[in-house]
């Protein structure tokens, strides 16, 4: 965690909101968009991180945490959502209230053509697997989106994803 990192301010706010809501397990496939958040979760003594080999593992780990009444989050890049649909049966069929934090690739300002196919599919994929989407385009949207996702996955008993667009993250530096 570096104070002058462009994601430091909002990552700190996001981490505090997650932690206050009782999120203890931060599962992740490393990405520039979740790097600062994961560093905060590693440093804090009430939270722990789990490095995944592939994103769908995080879906199952979060479901396992829910079985014993704990909260967890899956942090990943949008391309990784493409690895998840079969495991999202746990959201759609079993109604596990999965919480995801997705940093977008393949949208605003993307220069890597490999990122567009999955980036373009994120919205439809989440919808088809019954995961509510709360998108963050601007810094002012963020707290509301996070609170909405925490509410949905809390008392709402509904899977939800906070989707951070590249307009918000900045396409540069990836």
């Amino acid at each position, binding site marked *: 965690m570096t104070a002058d990192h462009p994601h430091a301010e909002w990552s700190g706010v996001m981490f505090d909101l997650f932690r206050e809501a009782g999120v*203890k*397990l931060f599962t992740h496939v490393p990405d520039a968009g979740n790097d600062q958040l994961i560093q905060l979760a590693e440093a804090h003594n009430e939270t*722990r991180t*789990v*490095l*995944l*080999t*592939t994103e*769908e*593992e*995080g*879906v*199952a*780990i*979060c*479901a*396992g*945490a*829910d*079985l*014993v*009444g*704990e909260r*967890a989050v899956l942090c990943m890049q949008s391309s990784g959502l493409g690895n998840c649909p*079969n*495991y999202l*049966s*746990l959201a759609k*069929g*079993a*109604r*596990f209230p999965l919480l995801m934090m997705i940093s977008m690739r393949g949208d605003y300002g993307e220069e890597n053509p490999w990122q567009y196919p999955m980036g373009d599919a994120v919205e439809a994929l989440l919808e088809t697997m019954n995961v509510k989407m709360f998108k963050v385009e601007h810094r002012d949207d963020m707290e509301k989106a996070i609170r909405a996702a925490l509410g949905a996955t809390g008392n709402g008993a509904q899977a939800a994803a906070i989707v951070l667009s590249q307009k918000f993250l900045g396409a540069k530096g990836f």
Partner: protein
Amino acid sequence: MAKAPNAKIDRRELLPQLFPTPDEWLFVSGLAGASRDAAALTKDGGNLYTMAGAMGAAVPMGLGVALSAPDRKVAVINGDGEMLMGIGSLVTVASAAPANLTIVCEDNAMHGETGRQTGHTASMANLEMIAKGSGIASTLTISEPGEIAQAAAFIAEAPGPRFLVVRVLPTDPAAYRRNMDMAECRVRFRNAFMAGG
């Protein structure tokens, strides 16, 4: 028909010997025969979450339970096909290193649910070596009924996480009809856990 090399263990007699006090455990089981065997063990109890889809998810789900309930003993029961579909999760388990997690893989070297097609472990893949290479220090493979007591001691005493491969005969799993309502079973597990079960 495929047959696991040297396998002499009847899967229906395995789990009660490995887990003589199943009420002390939290179980997650993967499709398909593994979940029937686990349901027979617990009488489809509230301390078991069985799956019949999301193939490969049993180990990471068990990992999520183990990390979130560190004071409880957690076991994943799965088969070789399910294990291989989520094989990377062994790497994740090794890195996360939950001392309270045991994985039991009933390896019949075939895809029993879909027509008994030959699986990778029939002649080539070695699950214990994969687990060891992933970084799981406590591993064991058994194939004889006389080794089951040793495997039970391994589960009770070896430092976790533990990975046990049991080479089983190509016999049918337990004929136990479990609750297949995946949402209802989630609530059942949570309620049993909150009640201290």
